[in-house]
């Protein structure tokens, strides 16, 4: 009878120890998966932001501000990858999430900039076309009237 409580106590500690190992391994696997998922999300956000910046660049807008932000996201993503390789999964997740946030912000800013650059380009295009048409009309009519003037003056 006196031995039973001590046996139960030993059994309790063995079970508690085993449970703690199991739970910590489960958490570790979970944090590694979380880090990998976060990094993948950050990579996708960065690539998407980069593609948006390229589109803005193609319509002729100044993308230097966007590139500076994008490089900030790139630094976070690089740190996330390095932390992951070192097994610092919590740090990897944190860096990846920060990188993703910056990437999303860059993409949103890029779309706004693209819209305004596109509108400016359209305006500039119409002004250029109108200027050329006006120029051709003026030169054509001016040449015609000048030719008639010369013919009258020097028959």
């Amino acid at each position, binding site marked *: 009878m006196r031995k039973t409580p001590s046996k139960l106590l030993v059994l309790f500690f063995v079970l508690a120890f085993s449970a703690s190992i199991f739970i910590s391994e489960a958490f570790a696997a979970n944090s590694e998966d979380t880090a990998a998922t976060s990094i993948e999300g950050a990579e996708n956000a960065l690539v998407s932001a*980069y593609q948006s910046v390229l589109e803005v660049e193609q319509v002729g807008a100044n993308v230097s501000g966007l590139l500076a932000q994008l490089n900030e996201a790139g630094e976070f993503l690089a740190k996330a990858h*390095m932390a992951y390789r070192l097994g610092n999964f919590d740090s990897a997740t944190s860096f990846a999430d920060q990188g993703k946030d910056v990437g999303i912000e860059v993409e949103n800013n890029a779309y706004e900039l693209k819209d305004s650059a596109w509108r400016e380009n359209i305006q500039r295009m119409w002004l250029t076309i109108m200027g050329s048409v006006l120029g*051709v009309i003026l030169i054509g009519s001016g040449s015609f009237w000048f030719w008639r003037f010369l*013919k009258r003056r020097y028959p």
Partner: protein
Amino acid sequence: MHVEEYRTLFIVGSLILMLVAVAPTLSLFIRIPSGSERFSELWLLGPAHTAENYPFNVSVNEEYSVFVGVGNHLGSSSYYVVYVKFRNQSQQLPNSTTSEPSSLSPFYEFRFVLSDGEVWEAPLTFAIENVLLQQNFSLVQNISINDIVFPVNYTSIWDSNRNGFYYQMFFELWLYNMTSNSFQYHNRFVSLWLNITST
């Protein structure tokens, strides 16, 4: 003066002036492709920001500095990664003939986007730490790069021709490919030979 004799000249002159007036509109729609070569640059500079005094004989636990730089001449903004790798004498370097990178995992990396014509440069400070040096054998356990310590555990055999334990730090340039939606090795790398000494 007979004006009719100058009719053709007058018409040609008017047409040329009209062409000048239309030129800005034509430039909106006609793009003349640039004939310049498209390429990226990758370089390594010593601690004084010059192409000399590169670290070579390196002591354990001493810090050394270099600068790594990239230049973009690809015609548009480009997304680069520079991987910092470390090898012993027998491990694989990138293969310039087949455009294949080294199969070794990177330790450190830089990620950045450069606009066309822009250059990027960053300092890199490294130290070889926890080295076991025996008569014919060395083991590098750790390397720190920009204050981050990476486990290495690479061995090197004594090189009797060059009298040293030789390792190599090298930098691979990778470029994001919009067609394949992935990074690809850009067939450029620079490297530093390091002779590990105890003091």
